[in-house]
């Protein structure tokens, strides 16, 4: 659990954060919004529900009102005039509804802000205030706590990992007809540590075996880890800096212990963002190894001739959902397109796409916040409409979090599509070297 000093109320704890933990960037942002409202339709939540509370500027204003009350002269002298608000239980509840229920931290509004402010940074600050008050959604908190306690957010034991890998390895050998193919675990001194989302181990082993097959065919020197392998970070979603640092720190320490040159992050948007861009800031030092998404690595293999792909093996129409944290907030934009053009016979883009894409509705930890399920599905209508208009039979997405949401949207909106990772599509298109049995 987040640290909560005994004998203090939720409001007092929230106030401590509000008063003390404002950094320069957040302060600048909270002084920047002019409430022009032009951001409204850039938000998928507002597009879906049409409620003024969902306008990004409105969500920012929930935080800015509190900021003005405690950090500005006019807010102290004439609070009503500048719309400054005293922090009380009611204000905290309204803030929680905005910060956890109406924002997925996708960042689309930031690209469209007249001023240039990034509302997701402000919402993360709001989440840290709420976290101090013990008002983060229980599901998000529970995932963070389980990761802190066990090394992964699903509490998967080392034995379970080894057992899953053993049968996946056998399955891969049968598929490839190559008894030398392997899924190495805990090997030291290899070039690459492939870190995964625990959901792959527990619920989506096919994406894990697809990655293993790609590594094998590309001739990579790699390993999995049986402990501290989790790329997800619910401390980030909860905006609990201590938890986020500890969770990322365990994986970083594991990579250092194994002595790898590169940490390759499986298909997970926020996992990539936190490890590639946030972890060095949390840990206060540059990482001693390279961090790349598996999407980038696969694209490199393809460009270097280490993979040969036959698009005829994936003849159905495929479209691509761009995970916000990988694309708009991560910068991995073209690699997935290069892969799909090579691996699928009929690849079509959604509109809009790339950094302009709409969030699927499952970002920001929404999938773990069961109290906001109905709004999450409602907000996903924009994505469902995008998918339907492509006429695709397969939706590819390099993010397990997005995949969970897309599968729910598939059921809720009767889209009739198959939702797959990039690795699964690429593995199906592999042209195996002569001598393989695949």
């Amino acid at each position, binding site marked *: 659990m987040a640290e909560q000093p005994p004998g203090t109320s939720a409001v007092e704890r929230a106030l401590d954060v509000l008063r003390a933990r404002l*950094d*320069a*960037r957040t*302060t*600048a*942002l909270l*002084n*920047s*919004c*002019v*409430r*022009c*409202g*032009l951001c*409204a*339709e*850039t938000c998928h939540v507002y597009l879906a529900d049409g409620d*003024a*509370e969902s*306008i990004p*500027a*409105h969500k920012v*204003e929930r935080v800015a009102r509190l900021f003005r009350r405690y950090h500005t002269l*006019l807010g102290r002298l004439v609070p*009503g*005039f*500048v*719309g400054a608000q005293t922090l009380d239980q009611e204000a905290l509840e309204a803030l929680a509804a905005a910060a956890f229920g109406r924002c997925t931290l996708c960042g689309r509004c*930031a*690209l*469209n*802000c*007249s*001023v*240039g*402010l*990034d509302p997701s940074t402000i919402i993360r600050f709001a989440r840290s205030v709420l976290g101090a008050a013990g008002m983060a959604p229980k599901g998000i908190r529970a995932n963070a706590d389980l990761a802190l306690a066990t090394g992964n957010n699903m509490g998967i034991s080392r034995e379970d990992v080894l057992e899953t890998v053993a049968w996946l390895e056998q399955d891969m050998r049968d598929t490839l007809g190559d008894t030398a193919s392997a899924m190495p675990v805990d090997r030291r001194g290899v070039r690459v540590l492939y870190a995964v989302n625990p959901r792959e181990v527990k619920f989506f082993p096919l994406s894990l075996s697809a990655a293993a097959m790609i590594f094998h065919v590309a001739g990579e020197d790699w390993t999995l880890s049986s402990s501290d392998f989790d790329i997800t970070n619910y401390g980030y979603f909860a905006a609990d800096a201590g938890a986020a640092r500890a969770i990322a720190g365990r994986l970083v320490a594991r990579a250092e212990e194994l002595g790898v040159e590169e940490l390759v992050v499986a298909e997970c948007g926020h996992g990539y963002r936190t490890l*590639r*861009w946030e*972890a*060095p*800031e949390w840990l*206060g030092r*540059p990482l001693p190894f390279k961090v790349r998404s598996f999407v980038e690595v696969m694209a490199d293999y393809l460009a270097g001739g280490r993979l040969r792909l036959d698009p005829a093996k994936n003849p159905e129409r495929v479209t691509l959902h761009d995970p916000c944290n990988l*694309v*708009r907030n*991560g*910068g991995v*934009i*073209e690699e997935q397109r290069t892969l799909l*053009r090579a691996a699928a016979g*009929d690849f*079509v*883009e*959604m*509109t*809009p*796409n*790339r*950094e302009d894409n709409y969030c699927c509705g499952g970002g920001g930890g929404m999938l773990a916040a069961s109290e906001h399920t109905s709004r999450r599905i409602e907000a996903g209508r924009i994505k469902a409409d995008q998918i339907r208009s492509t006429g695709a039979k397969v939706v590819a997405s390099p993010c397990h979090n997005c995949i969970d949401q897309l599968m729910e949207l598939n059921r809720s909106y009767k889209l009739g599509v198959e939702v797959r990772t990039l690795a699964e599509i690429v593995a199906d298109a592999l042209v195996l070297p002569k001598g393989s049995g695949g």
Partner: protein
Amino acid sequence: MNPAALVLLAAMVTSVAGFVVLRVRTGSTPVPLAPPRGSAAAGALYAFTVAFAPWAKESASRHLPSYAAGIAYHLAVFTALITLVHSLFGTPLPRALNAATAVLVAVGLVAGAALLVKRCTDLRLRAISVPEDFFANGLVDLTLVAGLATTVCPTALPIFQIVGAVLLLYAPFGKLRHLLFLLTSRRDLGATLGRRGVWPVSHPRGTDRG
């Protein structure tokens, strides 16, 4: 220097000092430690140039009249501020420049008034507005009126200078402080997206490129 000019000069010094204090108190964003994928400088440059264009900004293309009004309004404000500074030197503007100023300020004034009307009548905008939004707009509009009057009737200059002084004294304390903070917000956004290789956008927009 007439008394109104002295008041204006004092207000300018106070306002600048206020903004400097604000800037110093806010501090600066630390240099990120993660190795860049792109260029922070290129991203920041993009943020202050192409990213403003309606074709690069969905919010602008969807609300073109409001966006254009906002630009005209801010152009007029900066024109008025420059005119105020110039007024301290006690020399009249050249005739052509005075005419250009009058046009810019007049257009901006109409745009500002239109935005004020929109804020009063648009339910969505009212939901996110606070009383200060109306006050700030009104005060700026009043300054523009005084500035416009001065371009037509130079004897109105002291009024323009006094109203301008009030605006400058108010600026560091209220909503108008976005004048300072938008620069850092936009630069930080551009630098972050530049480092991550998202900005500058390097692909054609608005097409279904498979």
